[in-house]
Structures are given as structure tokens and as C-alpha cells.
């Protein structure tokens, strides 16, 4: 015979019990939990100290920071004097020094626009996007290249250093994303011609090394186009990088498109939306959000790949540091040079990575 149980007193909600807090408790539960864990922790700490101490000694404690020539470097540590003496060249390349304010102004404008776009507190994001994507490129072109509005022209072969790296990366990133989206949509198209063109394009560019693309762009392209069309070497490199990366971008976006349930497009279709509205309003916003890690991964790869332009004689940051290493006055400071280049690349890539993680959190709507 079963007996009726009836409980009518509600139980009040209580806070969850506190976990062990304080540094000692944290250490015990995370680093020294059992003998194997403790030994591994000690080993790791030892390895960190053994590895980092000489690095810090070399890079900071024993380093020489001040001076103008190699005579200032006599303490046995890193010679950052080499970097500071050549700093302007690393940033601007061979851009005439009296015109470098134009580069600075472009940098500042760009930083302001990125801040406007990235900081959520600032208003009018749509206007910011239009200014960044439409107005800024024109302004930047006239500022950097000059040749009108009374500004003397600076031909692109004098561009170099970080400035050139940023031009390559930003143009590549801004152009590769939309082309990649169009290619990804084309690859999913039901129209056979659009589909095959997209597939062939993507598979061709994905199958060719970027170095080959750059060589072809700089050496072979002039053989095919009529001589009166004198395409700038930088423009050719930009086109090569953009097409190459847009193929990768297309595959990333395709992955995102496939992850969107079919019901989403069906619901949009049932509401009477045509193809472009279904894609632009429903499918792509969701797919792109899902693909932020992949897209930023491609951006980061693109940013670093720009250094390959050194093989076609463009002096990006890496190339110009390498050139400076060959200077007879500064022989033997290649470690400092490469560490500096790596550090600058790392700053930009890490920044992109952090921003993408922030975006992912911000765009999460609980599904």
C-alpha cells in the first residue's frame, strides 16, 4: 500500500556553498593536488624561470636603449639602439621625410575610424562603416599617393615598412571578405554557370602558393597586358593577395552557410522574401557571426602573409628590417631586428584576436 507524501512548505533559495578561496587554497587545488601534479608544477615553474630569466636579462635588463650608433651597445644585452636609430625607416620606408605627416595623418584617421567602429559607446555605426569603407580609402589614397591638391606625388616604390604592411593588409582584408562572401554564395548557387565559375575560381586560387601568385602578378602579368597599361607593382601585389585570400574566405563563409539550418531560409521564403533578402537579412548575418573565429583566423593569416611581398621587391616591414641588417654600420643585430618585427606583427594579430573574442561574446543572443 502506497502512502501519500505531501510537502507544501516551499524551500527558500540559498546561495551555493563557497569554494575554497585565497591564494594558498588556490595553489593547493590547482598546482599541488597530489604528488604527480606537484612534480609537474615544479618542473613547469623551473622551465619557465630557466627560459625567461636569460630572455628578460637580454631583452630588458642588460639591453641598451639610448644612443645613436653601435658604439652605444656594449653591455652584452639587446641593442635596441639599432631599432630606434632606424625606427622612422621601419615605419615609413623610403617615404620622403618632409611628407611623412601625410602617412601619420592617414594612421590617425584610420585609428579614429577603427575606434569609432569598435567602441560600442559611440553612435552612428552605419555612418562610421560608410566613412571607413567608402570615404576613407579615397582620402587615404590621395594622402599617401598624393599628386593632386597641391601635394607632391610619392610613387609606390618609395612606400615601405609598417606603412606598406598595413596598406597591404587592410586593403586585402577589406576586399577579400565581400569577394569571399560572393564566391561562397556562388558555390551554393543552383545556377550551373555561376556555380562552376565559383568552384573553379576557389579551387584554382586555393591550389596555388601565394609566392607563385605574387611572382605571377609581378613578372608574368606584364607579359599579358598591353604595354600601355602600366600597372603599379603594388596594385598587382594587392590584386594577387586579395584574390588569393578571397578564395580562403569563401571556404570559411561556406562552412558558416552550411551551419545555418534550412528552416531559416524556408521561414524567410515563406514570408515572401527573395533570394537577396533571405541571404542578406537572415542567413548571412547568422553565418558570419558563427564564422567570426574563422574569418579572423584568415585575416591574421593574411596579415602575416603580406610579408611575402619582399620576394617581388616591395619593402614591407620585414623586408625593410632585413635590408637594414645588411647595413655595414649595423652588422650583427639580426636578432634584435627579427624580434622587433615579430613583436609588431604580434601586437596587430593579438589585437584582432582579442577583438574577435569580444565580438563573439557581444553578438551572442542566447541560442
Amino acid at each position, binding site marked *: 500500500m502506497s502512502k501519500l507524501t505531501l510537502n507544501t512548505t516551499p524551500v527558500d533559495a540559498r546561495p551555493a556553498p563557497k569554494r575554497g578561496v585565497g591564494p594558498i587554497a588556490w595553489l593547493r587545488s590547482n598546482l599541488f593536488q597530489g604528488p604527480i601534479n606537484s612534480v609537474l608544477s615544479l618542473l613547469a615553474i623551473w622551465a619557465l624561470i630557466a627560459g625567461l630569466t636569460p630572455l628578460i636579462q637580454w631583452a630588458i635588463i642588460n639591453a641598451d636603449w639610448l644612443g645613436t650608433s653601435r658604439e652605444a651597445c656594449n653591455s652584452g644585452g639587446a641593442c635596441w639602439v639599432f631599432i630606434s636609430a632606424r625606427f622612422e625607416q621601419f615605419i615609413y620606408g623610403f617615404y620622403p621625410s618632409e611628407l611623412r605627416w601625410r602617412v601619420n595623418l592617414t594612421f590617425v584617421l584610420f585609428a579614429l575610424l577603427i575606434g569609432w567602429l569598435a567602441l560600442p559607446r559611440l553612435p552612428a555605426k552605419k555612418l562610421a562603416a560608410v566613412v571607413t569603407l567608402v570615404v576613407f580609402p579615397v582620402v587615404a589614397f590621395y594622402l599617401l599617393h598624393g599628386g593632386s591638391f597641391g601635394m607632391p606625388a610619392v610613387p609606390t616604390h618609395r612606400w615601405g615598412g609598417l606603412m606598406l604592411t598595413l596598406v597591404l593588409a587592410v586593403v586585402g582584408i577589406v576586399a577579400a571578405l565581400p569577394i569571399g562572401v560572393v564566391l561562397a554564395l556562388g558555390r551554393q548557387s543552383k545556377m550551373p554557370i555561376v556555380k562552376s565559375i565559383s568552384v573553379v575560381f576557389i579551387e584554382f586560387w586555393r591550389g596555388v602558393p601565394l609566392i607563385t601568385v605574387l611572382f605571377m602578378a609581378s613578372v608574368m602579368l606584364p607579359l599579358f597586358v598591353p604595354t600601355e597599361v602600366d600597372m603599379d607593382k603594388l596594385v598587382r601585389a594587392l590584386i594577387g593577395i586579395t584574390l588569393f585570400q578571397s578564395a580562403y574566405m569563401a571556404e570559411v563563409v561556406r562552412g558558416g552557410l552550411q551551419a545555418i*539550418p534550412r*528552416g*531559416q531560409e*524556408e*521561414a*524567410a*521564403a*515563406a*514570408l*515572401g*522574401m*527573395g*533570394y537577396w*533578402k533571405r541571404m542578406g*537579412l*537572415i542567413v548571412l*548575418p*547568422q553565418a558570419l*557571426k558563427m564564422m567570426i573565429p574563422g574569418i579572423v583566423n584568415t585575416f591574421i593569416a593574411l596579415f602575416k602573409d603580406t610579408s611575402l611581398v619582399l620576394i617581388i621587391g616591395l619593402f614591407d616591414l620585414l623586408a625593410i628590417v632585413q635590408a637594414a641588417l645588411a647595413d655595414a654600420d649595423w652588422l650583427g643585430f639580426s636578432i634584435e631586428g627579427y624580434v622587433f618585427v615579430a613583436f609588431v606583427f604580434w601586437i596587430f594579430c593579438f589585437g584582432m584576436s582579442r577583438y574577435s573574442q569580444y565580438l563573439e561574446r557581444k*553578438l551572442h*543572443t*542566447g*541560442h
Partner: protein
Amino acid sequence: MTSQTAKADDTPMIEMRGLNKWYGDFHVLRDIDLTVQRGERIVICGPSGSGKSTLIRCINHLEEHQQGEIVVGGIPMTQDVKRIEQIRHHVGMVFQHFNLFPHLSVLENCSLAPIWVQKKPRREAEALAMKYLERVRIAEQAHKFPGQLSGGQQQRVAIARSLCMHPEVMLFDEPTSALDPEMIKEVLDVMVELAEEGMTMLCVTHEMGFAKTVADRVIFMDQGQIIEENAPEPFFNDPQSERTQLFLSQILGH
């Protein structure tokens, strides 16, 4: 040619004649003839795989039929994309898995199509959305995202989203099958109200109580065919075909 625009009230809402459809070699819909008058409420039932969902998905061309003809609100269905979109403006649809747009708020889900498809001003579209959200009793959640709502709430939003386009006919594709039992009623209540207001409805559902109270006609399908169609009272009390009897005994048996 004038039949494309004819909208006199005596034209049937939906006419299907000799409809056939195949998935590859699999014959899903076989010689379907069905006429739905304006204001009629029809419940379609049948075992899974009988083609009932496919049938109503043909009405707004989410599925393409290979033979036969469909006329919706006087507009004959063709391959033409513009024609299909025109038909879809008159036909609302509610899906088993709601298919709300997760990246948009409830309000945006409802106002999106009026803004972009019917070109209504934003303010007007949002007022319209709020009106229908109130009607499905969920206006207070308008600024939440679908992922923050329960299944029953999401399905009610999906109904409001369809109604915002002022459809002449509503298709329901198993609207309560993905819901927890205690949420089925809130959705059915909204559907009953809609039926009482005179909306033309085609519902694929296993809710036989709903069929008994609301339907003008119940259609039983099996293996891609319409086996039996009748008013609910004789359909449930005196089914003619053996397959219908078996089906009803299986779903009403306990």
C-alpha cells in the same frame, strides 16, 4: 489570363488538381485533388511519411511538384520566381520547429517582412507587430530574443510573425509536435481563436481534439494519397476506410 488577378470571394482559396511529386524514385504525392474554400479549416492527419507535410509545403512552393497544378488565391503556380513570391505574400506558414530568426528580437522577427517585403515604414511595421504580439499574448516579450523564450512562446511569436503579412490562408506544419506537453494548449488556444475569426487554415497535426472542435473537414493521408476526407463528426465516429480505422485506433487507443 484574367484569372491571375481574379479575387472574387467565390474563387476557391486553394485548388490542387492531379498533383504528383517524387523524391528521386520515391513517389511522395500521388494524384492529389484538393479544393479549399475561403474560410475553410482543414486538418490533415496520417502516419509519418504519408506526405502530409510535403502536401502543404507545395502550396507555397517550399517543395516543388512535378505534375499537376496548384492555384492559390486565383494565382496559378509556375516556376516563375516573382509569381511564387506573389503567392507567398498571401500564404502564411508556421513550422514544427518555429524557425524564428535567432539573431533578431521578437519585435524584429515580426516587423522584418512588413518592412522589407511590403515596404512599410518602420514605425508602422512595428505597431503592426505589437498588435499581433498582443493578440498572441506575448507583447511583453517583444524585446527579448527567441532563444530566451519557451517553445510555446516561440511558436506564438511565429504565428504573430506570419499574421503580420496579412495572409489569406495559414499553413500549420505540425505546430505543436516539438512542444512540451504543458505548452501545447497555449498554442492551440491561439489557433482556435484564429479559426473562430474566419482565417482559412490548413493544419497538419495529430491534435485530434483540435480537429474535432475546429475543423470543417478532416483529411486522412497514407502513402502519398488522400484516403478519406469528411467532416470531423463522421470522420472520427464512422471512418470508412480500414486504414483510417487502424490509424485512429492507434492514436486514440489509449
